[in-house]
Structure formats: C-alpha cells, structure tokens
C-alpha cells in the first residue's frame, strides 16, 4: 500500500510539472508578452521598460524556472485588473468554489447511488425505466434554466432559500442542486451497470448461498465492487463541476473561481487566467490521485500491482 501511494504521488507530481511547463509555453505562444502588457498604444521605450521590469529580457529557460518556482510556491504575481495579488484573489474565491463543488457532488452521489441500485435491482422493470427517464430528463435540462426555475420557486415564491450571495450554507443549496444535475445521470448509470454486473457475479451467488441478508448482499458485497468506477467518475465529475461552475456562479452571484475566471478572461487579465488554469489542472490531478487511492482502498488487488 505504501509503495502504491508513493508511486501514485510521484506520478501526480510528474503530471503537475508537465502541466506547469505547458502553462508556461502557452503564455509564450501568445506573442511578445511585453507588447501585450503595454497595450496597443505604447511606445517602443515603454515596451522595453516593461520587458525589463517583468524580467522578459532574460533567457527563456531562466524565465521558466523563475516563473515555475514562484507558481509552485503560490506566487502568480499581481492581477492587471483587480490590482491585487493573484494569490489573494484565489485564497478568497477558492473556498466558495470548493464548497459548491463538494455540495454538488455530495447531492449527486446521495441521489444517484440509491437510484442506480434501485434500477439495477429492478432491471428491465418499470422502476428501472422510470429511473432512467428521470435521469434523461435531468440531463436534458439546461442548468441556467433549472437555476432560474429553482430561484423563482424556492427563492421568490416560497422564500425558503436565498437566491444570491455566499453568506450562509443556505446559499449553497440551490446552486449545489443545479450543479448536481449534470453529474447525476452518469453516476446513476454507472452505479446501475456496476450493480447489475456485481449482482450476477459468482461471489453474489456465494453470498446468497451463505444465507446472508438482502442488505448485506446488496450493500456489503455488491456495492463495494460496483463502487470503484463510480468513485473514479465522481472525481472527474467533481473536476467538471469545479471548472464548469462558471454559469452557476454567475447566475447565483457566487464569487468563486469560476466567476473569477470569467471576469479575468473578459478583462484580459493575464496572470489571473494563467493562475486559474493552473489551479484547475492541479485540482484535477489531486482528484485523480484521491480517486486512485480510494479505489485501492476498495480493491485489494490494485494495492498489490
């Protein structure tokens, strides 16, 4: 298990370094940074001054290591638009997005796994089809439309939930629900497929031959084995949620990373965009690592290989 952990972590670090390199190369591909920063009306001397000020006159390799070192220590420089350190911006916004993502995936799992199990246990019956239909409809709903619908009903009509801002946990309920809708169909189908597979396996026949209770057969023996792909996809889905929460953060006026990304892109705020891209990549890598470790905990065969 220790060796497994070590190898997976080393792999994750390697991927992170690659991403770092790519992020750097991408910014250089965008053209001469000094000209971009100085703006279209700048004079040649200004550009030259900026080039020196930002260290862009040094050899590229030096620039890369300097930038990479700073990025690795969380220093992305200053935002052009917000007039603040990018690291401060991220520190303020990240908790909002993370909370939103965790709430979203949490709701998705709590809904999708029981539904998937239910559909699997009643494979090819009306229950299975009804569950499938609900998932399909859920997937077809555009999230901004669903968001507006929820806001109208629970926010304005009933007045149960706040419709914008981040003041309390209630602020995360509706955005979390909307976010979860995108993940529920995939997670549900995966749970269903995994459970159907597991329930027809030889070890479930053994579990039945042992006279175990229905709940032990389904939850202890089948779900444990069906859970592995669900864990992997949950990590991917959480990644999507964190990265793709721009629409929802905008609709609900949640000032998270997604909102920040949207603002900085529309304002050509270079350092911030770069930092956000890098941040998402790192989040992805960490999530994959977590999923791998979780799977190894679930499946002893993975630990050995």
């Amino acid at each position, binding site marked *: 298990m220790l060796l497994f952990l070590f190898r997976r972590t080393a792999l994750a670090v390697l991927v992170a370094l690659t991403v770092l390199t790519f992020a750097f190369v991408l910014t250089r591909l965008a053209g001469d940074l000094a000209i971009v920063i100085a703006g279209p009306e700048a004079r040649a001397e200004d550009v030259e001054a900026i080039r020196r000020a930002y260290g862009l006159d040094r050899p590229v390799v030096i620039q890369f290591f300097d930038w990479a070192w700073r990025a690795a220590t969380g220093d992305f420089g200053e935002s052009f638009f917000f007039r603040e350190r990018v690291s401060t911006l991220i520190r303020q916004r990240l908790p909002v997005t993370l909370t939103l993502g965790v709430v979203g995936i949490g709701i998705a799992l709590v809904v999708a796994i029981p539904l998937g199990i239910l559909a699997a246990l009643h494979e090819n019956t009306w229950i299975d089809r009804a569950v499938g239909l609900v998932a399909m409809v859920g997937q077809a709903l555009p999230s901004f439309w669903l968001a507006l619908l929820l806001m109208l009903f629970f926010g304005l009509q009933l007045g149960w939930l706040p419709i914008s801002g981040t003041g309390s946990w209630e602020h995360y309920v509706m955005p979390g629900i909307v976010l979860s809708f995108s993940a529920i169909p995939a997670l549900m189908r995966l749970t269903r497929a995994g459970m159907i597979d597991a329930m027809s396996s030889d070890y479930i*026949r*053994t579990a039945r031959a*042992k*006279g175990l209770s229905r709940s032990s057969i389904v939850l202890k023996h089948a779900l444990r084995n069906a859970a592995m792909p669900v864990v992997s996809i949950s990590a991917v889905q959480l990644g999507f949620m964190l990265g793709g929460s721009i629409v929802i953060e905008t609709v609900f006026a949640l000032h998270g990373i997604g909102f920040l990304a949207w603002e900085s892109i529309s304002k050509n705020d270079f350092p911030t965009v770069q930092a956000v891209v890098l941040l998402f990549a790192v989040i992805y890598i960490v999530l994959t690592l977590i999923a791998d470790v979780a799977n190894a905990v679930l499946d002893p065969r993975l630990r050995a290989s």
Partner: protein
Amino acid sequence: MSAARGTALLQVRNLRISFGSLAAVRGADLTIYRGETHCVVGESGCGKSVTALAVMGLLARNAVREADRLVFDGQDLLRLSESQLSRLRGDRMAMIFQEPMTSLNPAYTVGSQMAEVYRRHRGGSRAEALDRAEDLLAKCRVTSPRLRLGQYPHQLSGGLRQRVMIAMALMCDPELLVADEPTTALDVTVQAQILRLLMDLQRDLGLALMLITHDLGVVARMAHRVSVMYAGEVVESAPAEHLFGNPTHPYTRGLLACVPVPGKVRRDQPLGAIPGVVPRIGPRFEGCAFRDRCGQARPDCARTVAWQANGEHGYRCVLPPDWTGPASLAA
C-alpha cells in the same frame, strides 16, 4: 449427527424448472439420505446445476420453479419465504461451486468472508468466528490457516480457494452439502486432493453430500447412491453398486459401456460418448427424450414413459430390467 444415516434428508418430487420456452428440468425426483454421498451425473446441459440451485433456492430470476414436493428435514421449502429460506442456507444446507476463482468476493479477506456466515446464523463475536474458521481451514488441510484468514482471494491458488469455499460451507455444521462439479476447474493433481478431502469430510462429519460430477471414476469411488439425468429428467437412480452392477436405462448403459468392471473404472472417464445430440426440449415435449439416440426405441417410447421401481433401483424406460441389445443406435 442428529439422525441416523439412511433417513431421508431431502426429498424432491416432480421438480420442473423452465427458462421461458426452455424446459430445463421436467419432473425430476431425487431423495438424498443423511450421511450419504449422492452423485448426480449426466451430459452437459441436462439440468444438474439448475436442479441443485433449485434445491437451494438460488435459481436466476428468469427461472420458473415448480414442484410437487421439496422437503428438507421435514420442512416444506416451497412454502418458505425468501428470508426464512436464507436462514437455512449457509446454516443447515450449504453449497460450493465449480468456479473457485470467482466464487469468493475479491474485496474481502478470507477470514471476514468465513466469519460472516457464522455470525449471521450463530451470532457470537468476530474472534470466536475467526477461531472456528481457523479450525476448519486446518481441517480442510490448508497450510498456515491463521495467516490465510488475513489474505484476499487473489492471493490464493484455485485449489486453495476451493478449500476455503469448502471450509466456509462447513462453518455452521450443515447437514447437506451440495457440491456442483467442485473440481472441474482445477488441475488434475489438485482435483484428486479436493475429492479426497470431500470424501473424508463427508465420512467424518456425516454429511449428506450431493455431488454433481462428469467423472464416472469419482462416482465409482465416492457415491453411495447415483442419479443419472438426461435432458431434464432423472432417468435412473440406484445405490451405486446396483447402478454399476445392473445398469438398466439404455442411456446409463451407454454411459457405462466403456466401464467393464464396477469399481475398476478408469479415472477421468468422460461422459457423452454416446452418438447424437440432446434435443432441445420445449414445454410440450412428450415421451422419452432419449429415443432419437436409443437403439431400443419403440413406438410407445413417444408417449409418457412411466417410472419403474424395483426396491431402491428405479428407472424411466419401457424396457424390462433384464433387456439385452445395443444401448445406442451407433453401437
């Protein structure tokens, strides 16, 4: 042993199992006595496994099971609910399967899977259950049993996994052990060891053992009683010495044709040396299913054929017990 050897433990009468339009078992009778090994033989697809699964209540959901009688130790299994039945399974009747590689849950240790069945039926602490598991692994000739308890199935060989399955089946001291071709998937040398083990356990624990096999050598060495199945029916059933000494149904004679002396059969003698194929049997099939391959077939074989019993030896054929002639068409 709660009751003497030789009293009926399991009685199956007119068992029918169908999968849609396929009649997999058509009126099978079977009586298994306490403390006896009852071998069930027959060609692939004749319904041995589904019969065993029907007894255990483990048939797939698409199977329809009907019977006139299905009685285990005086209890009518047909009237038990699934949860009442699950109280018997693993406790008083246990089953092991043909596929040791996949029959254990890959996610749990041997110890936890063995302890679980004991605690389900007998309660008690985990430590107690693990002690019992260790004893049984030792009894099943597993080396370093304490160590095995902490291992996962993938760390064990096929033979070892089958020993674990056997030990697990014995956790609650069952009266009936159903073994469906328990050695088919194993190496020849391991097969012999596992069969030896089953034989010794059957004798030492006084188990009623329902052993499904393709191997007539195994039958000759282990069986007290034999039932021969063909196309979803039991066509002949008798104490082993009667069956080998005086096989009556043409199908049984065909099977034994290359077995000259009872008790001196060649090991690993395959079944199915009879020319022709088993017909697919629909729900409306009538008459003897063997008639396309039978050298003695007559017009009345196409009508319902009665079971003829002579003491403990019975068979389903129109011929008298002492008929002579070729058993199969291409003999």
